[in-house]
């Protein structure tokens, strides 16, 4: 990964966690003192490298896994804030990434009923009875990450 891409990637993640919003390439370029087209190219390379996910055909950030930049059915409270996760795996990944306790609220896609999980001091203390299903095998996860 190019040094510029790494700088941009780390800036985007730290900005998102601090500000709850993902910077645009123009904003990242201004902060880091690089030309905006170079920042936009870096966003596209980071998407291609699966280091973040853009909305199709744009430089608008959709996923900074495990965080989602858009609302989803997987809500997480952690480190005194509320977040959206991309999926069940990412929902439990947010407390891990933040190194904090966390509470996950989601819904069973079969019955629509609420499901809740809680992580305290790194342990899953609520929700252990739940199941998680992977429909897509690992080598195809990135064929359609939104579906995965």
């Amino acid at each position, binding site marked *: 990964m190019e040094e510029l891409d790494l700088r941009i990637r780390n800036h985007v993640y730290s900005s998102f966690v601090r500000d709850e919003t993902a910077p645009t390439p123009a904003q990242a370029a201004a902060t880091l003192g690089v030309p905006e087209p170079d920042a936009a190219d870096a966003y596209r390379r980071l998407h291609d490298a699966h280091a973040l996910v853009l909305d199709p055909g744009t430089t608008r950030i959709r996923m900074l896994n495990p965080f989602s930049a858009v609302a989803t059915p997987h809500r997480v409270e952690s480190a005194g804030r509320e977040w959206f996760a991309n999926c069940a795996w*990412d929902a439990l*990944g947010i407390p891990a990434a933040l190194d904090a306790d966390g509470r996950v609220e989601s819904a069973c896609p079969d019955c629509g009923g609420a499901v809740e999980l809680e992580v305290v001091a790194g342990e899953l203390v609520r929700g252990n009875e739940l*199941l998680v299903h992977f429909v897509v095998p690992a080598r195809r996860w990135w064929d359609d990450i939104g579906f995965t």
Partner: protein
Amino acid sequence: MVFLRSEEHLARWLASNGWEPGATLSAGTLHELAGGWWRTRLDPGWRPRTPAASQRILDEVGLTGEFWKLA
């Protein structure tokens, strides 16, 4: 991937979507996996993980076999 309340809910959800079963984990195993996979995501010195390192994380929580091969 999603959280489901039970095997019964899982079977009904797969059938209603016409999907073949993939792999089912307990939430506890997913929690272990999430810890290994995401713990370093916000580290200032973050670097991309190699596919082999990612595969090891899956292996360490018992996710082995063809379904879990990344490449």
